């Protein structure tokens, strides 16, 4: 499986570098304008930021969302619908090894996109905060506040959120993988088959979610997490003038998250993975 991961990552290296280059370029332009404004002591973001901030945020968010699905499925379409599938499907490896290797490589690739995307979004937020937030905090102060609140003040909710995100990533990725493999196995109309299987998956997900919530309520399976919400005030709008000052009182709240739906989804993902591996070995034809 390690070899599968190695070649999958090698194959994605160039695309990844290109994507990160685009991220870096559009965000750097937006930050340059925002930084110049701060340096000059402006009290709101420069006019150019009204264009570059939305563009850089849109590029970062859209690329991350698209990558979520492509990486989550281990770029399964490349495995099934290209000439290179001849290579991958004639190697003496079991179906589960091929799929697991590609899914793990997909997770690594997604992290290589999502982590910089998160950092870039936090820098954007810090710039907005530096203009619109409490006076005297400044860009660096705001940036450290963001990371402090996420990782220092709320380590447990953050860890849980990451775990849940991983669960969603794995489940969605395996479902897409299954949809692609099933469509390659039985139906030659790829679009129709994929749409039908995704529709079935959405229906099943809804049912599984309902079942999970009921199970959690009946068995009391909840994770209760304290969330620290510190005092926070905004003195106006970052983009315009004459904003209204608002302040939010600090508080500690408790978040109750039902555990069973996630366990149910992981069970569905495990079943779909096993079925996908079986189909890849026994039914997929080129």
């Amino acid at each position: 499986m390690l070899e599968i991961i190695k070649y999958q990552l090698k194959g994605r290296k160039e695309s990844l570098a290109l994507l990160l280059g685009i991220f870096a370029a559009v965000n750097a332009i937006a930050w340059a304008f925002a930084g110049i404004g701060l340096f000059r002591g402006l009290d709101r973001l420069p006019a150019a930021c009204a264009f570059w901030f939305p563009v850089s945020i849109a590029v970062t968010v859209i690329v991350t969302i698209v990558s979520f699905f492509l990486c989550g499925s281990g770029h399964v379409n490349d495995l099934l619908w290209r000439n290179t599938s001849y290579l991958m499907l004639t190697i003496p490896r079991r179906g589960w090894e091929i799929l697991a290797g590609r899914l793990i490589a997909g997770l690594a690739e997604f992290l290589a996109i999502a982590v910089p995307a998160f950092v870039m979004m936090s820098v954007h937020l810090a710039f907005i905060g530096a203009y619109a937030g409490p006076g005297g905090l400044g860009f660096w102060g705001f940036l450290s506040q963001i990371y402090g609140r996420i990782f220092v003040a709320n380590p447990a909710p953050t860890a849980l959120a990451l775990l849940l995100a991983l669960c969603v990533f794995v489940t969605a990725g395996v479902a897409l993988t299954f949809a692609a493999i099933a469509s390659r196995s039985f139906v030659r109309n790829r679009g129709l088959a994929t749409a039908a299987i995704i529709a079935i998956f959405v229906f099943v997900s809804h049912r599984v979610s309902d079942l999970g919530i009921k199970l959690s309520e009946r068995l009391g399976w909840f994770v209760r997490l304290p969330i620290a919400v510190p005092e926070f005030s905004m003195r106006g709008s970052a983009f315009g003038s004459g904003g209204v000052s608002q302040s939010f009182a600090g508080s500690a709240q408790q978040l109750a998250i039902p555990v069973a739906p996630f366990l149910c989804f992981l069970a569905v993902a495990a079943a779909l993975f096993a079925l996908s591996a079986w189909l890849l070995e026994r039914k997929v034809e080129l």
Partner: protein
Amino acid sequence: MATILETNGLKKNYLSKPALRDITLRLDSGRILGLMGPNGSGKTTFMKIIAGLQKPSGGTFAVCGETAGVKTKGLVSFLPDRNALYSWMRASDAIDFYADFFADFDRAKALDMLGFMKLEPGQKVKEMSKGMTEKMDLVLAFSRKARLFLLDEPLGGVDPVARERIVSTIIKTWTEDSSIIISTHLVNDVERLFNDVAFIDSGEVILTGDAETLRSERGKSIDQLYLEIFADR
């Protein structure tokens, strides 16, 4: 002589359309089989089934006694009729890939053959011509010590010099303990290699036998026999 490939009543249907009908063949070690037939006759389907890329609708096959599965993929070296290498790869990456996945891959032989084929290890697949990728694929397929080599149209789309190099490589690769199946339209270029031939039409083997026996019995070359059989079909 050990039996390398044995098929019994191998069938393949695409929905209701039969692509292979009851193919029963036996190939012993040290033999080179020429699989010949017009386009759509079922040659590629047959090879894909043995390579593990398609599943038979009926019948069975065994490679060195092993039934279809991961083990047979380790025994079969398949050269498809298209370039299957990743475009990001350099020739050296492709050699690394084969070395990592196939226990029987001989890296030294691959590098030697690369030179023989006038290819550079640093050349990128996406920058190679059709002829170059065919030679690259051949280098990889023949650098394995596989028991069964399946060559689907190995001479298609290459110039006569490259064709001669490919034929020389096939001769050099031939060993007593392995077998080769070659499907081709360019019968004249390779018929001297064949020990056995099988003519296939509409998914059915219509004539098979020892190449030399057929030549002497019919008083014709295999190429002439091909023309005679398929001229009216």
